[in-house]
């Protein structure tokens, strides 16, 4: 197959990074990104982009750790280069605090982030309602900058990007040899995946440039993540809620919870409210599938269902997806050479 035509559906962090990995591993491929939304209107744009993994119950821990490690290493190198500010990648230190000591004192990712250790008594005094905590340094991917940087790198390699709502993967079979499904929450409708469900998150993005450290409650519900220009205050985890409209009561609740962790946030200015639907699933769907209709076949690689942990594992899953695309190409070349016999 001369130049396999690959369509990547979805232009969030998973879609764009997967497209980039495919280009990197298969230079002869012609890659096109199709999405109904591009930055700044993707789910990724709402997220803070913190590299703190979410645990998928259905994926082996060693696999999740490998994905996280690959992602962290990749971004670490960018953060230390001249491209860091354009890519929106920066280091940030802070604390994860718990009202009750967690069952697992050492999360699986504690040796991937930097300087992970329990908080000292003096540090905990800043959080009188919390009894235990962990301090560490991790990375943050600010969006839109990171997505725009990925788009720029893709365009530089000749990747085309089109705004297009794909209603059915099969509609692409005549134009493309392989389809990569990075549709995030859109996969619910696109491929009818009933195991995929939204977990609604509302966040506030505020101007509070004196906040230099992140603070996260171990329950995952309340967090303060300082970005380049804005601090993301969160949040909510509302299972099965499809509403993209900000809720004013929730806004006040998030603000109050964050102010109790960091009182200086009372002085925050220019509060913007955003909502995103985490594409949640028991495990990330990262696998090949072959669709067939009327004698025609369309190889598909699925890479969706990253839930609350998209940024944390995006590069690792993108590389795996690119590897699966490579398998699809080999299979197509194998069958086409068989067809020639």
């Amino acid at each position, binding site marked *: 197959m001369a130049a396999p035509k690959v369509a990547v559906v979805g232009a969030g962090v998973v879609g764009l990074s997967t497209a980039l990995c495919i280009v990197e591993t298969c230079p002869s491929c012609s890659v096109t990104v199709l999405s109904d939304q591009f930055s700044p209107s993707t789910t990724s744009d709402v997220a803070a982009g913190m590299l703190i993994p979410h645990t998928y119950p259905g994926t082996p821990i060693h696999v999740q750790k490998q994905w996280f490690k690959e992602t962290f290493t990749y971004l670490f190198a960018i*953060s*230390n*280069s*001249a*491209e*860091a*500010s*354009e890519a*929106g990648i*920066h*280091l*940030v*230190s*802070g604390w994860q605090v718990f009202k009750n000591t967690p069952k697992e004192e050492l999360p699986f990712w504690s040796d991937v982030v*930097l*300087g992970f*250790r329990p*908080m*000292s008594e*003096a*540090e905990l005094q*800043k959080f009188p309602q919390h009894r235990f905590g962990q*301090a560490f*340094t991790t990375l943050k991917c*600010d969006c839109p900058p990171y997505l725009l940087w990925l788009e720029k790198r893709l365009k530089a390699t000749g990747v085309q990007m089109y705004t297009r709502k794909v209603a059915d993967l099969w509609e692409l079979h005549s134009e493309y040899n392989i389809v990569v499904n990075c549709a995030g929450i859109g996969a619910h409708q696109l491929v009818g995946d009933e195991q995929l469900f939204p977990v609604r998150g509302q966040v506030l993005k505020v101007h509070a*440039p*004196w*906040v*230099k*450290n992140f603070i996260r409650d171990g329950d995952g519900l309340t967090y303060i993540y*300082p970005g*380049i*220009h804005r601090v993301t205050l969160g949040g909510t985890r509302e299972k099965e809620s499809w509403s993209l409209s900000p809720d004013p009561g929730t806004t006040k609740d998030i603000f109050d919870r964050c102010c109790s962790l960091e*009182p*200086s946030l*009372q*002085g925050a200015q220019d509060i913007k409210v955003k909502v995103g639907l985490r594409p949640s699933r028991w495990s990330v769907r990262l696998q090949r599938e072959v669709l067939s209709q009327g004698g025609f076949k369309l190889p598909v690689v699925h890479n969706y269902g990253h839930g609350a942990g998209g940024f944390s594992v995006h590069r690792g899953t993108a590389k795996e997806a690119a590897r699966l695309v490579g398998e699809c190409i080999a299979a197509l070349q194998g069958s086409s050479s068989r067809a020639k016999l």
Partner: protein
Amino acid sequence: MRVAVIGAGVIGLSTALCIHEQYHSLVPSLEMEVYADRHTPHTTSDGAAGLWQPYLSDHGNLQETLWNKETFDYLLGHLGSPAAKEMGLFLISGYNLFTQLVPDPSWKSIVLGFRNLTPKELELFPGYSYGWFNTALMLECRSYLPWLTNRLTQRGVKFFHKKVESFQEMFAQGMDVVINCTGVRAGELQPDPELQPGRGQVIKVLAPWVKHFIITHNIESGIYNSPYVIPGSEFTVLGGIYQHGNWNEENSTQDHKTIWESCCRLLPALQKAKIVEEWSGLRPARPWVRLERETVRHGHFQAEVIHNYGHGGFGITSHWGCAMAAARLFGSILQEKKLATPPQPRL
């Protein structure tokens, strides 16, 4: 009782506030005035990034370590208050980098979460083989000095834009006590060969993605002669110049080049930062801080001077501990003059 504070940098204003807070109710006749030819934002304090961090070694000067601790604890206590933002006070974490193993500093237990750097963290800083991580405080004087000025003005303290030429000038005006917080130019009021300028230059840039302070150390070149990057609430300060004995307050192109190149080498991401301002200032360097009383003859009278100057590059770091010490000296003056009942013992 008329008190004149000379100097309106961080030392002058905090000493004024500390004394006024403690003694105004005990001495109803207390009238305080602040005299300075430079007020915020034109003081030496205003140019400093505002990071609380003492020098690496206290040279056995336990007194200074105590003042530093008192200052840190005082500021830490204010972190959660509504005033913090207005004061320009916030927590910040960061790195101290070395090319060799060094002993832990006297302040390791004062700051939060002090630890050595891990090998992976050191990968971020090629050329440095050892280092510390800790969380400290920032106190930005372009906010803190106006905040102090407001507190003082609310208390009825008067401010004068004036260069005081001599202590005698103040006593002739009827001042009973003069608090000398004149920083690097204290020698103009009373010769002090121990006091020398420690010239510094900084470049202020827009680099809001930098969330940590990074201070490098070169044991041979000496303190602050090695690049440092300190992110503030609006700008990031790049520095690394310390020239002992240099009185020049003009920006030097050579120093600019040194700072810019060494900081960009340290943090490649800075190459894209936009330069907003350049500034030079004179640290009031002295082997130790001059914090003491002096009785000065003024005609038939005895007048008192409390000296509080010579804080070098750690004025912000030590200011409140020094202000409290100056206030204690003031209290002893009052006792001698039998103007105040001794303070009640704290339970």
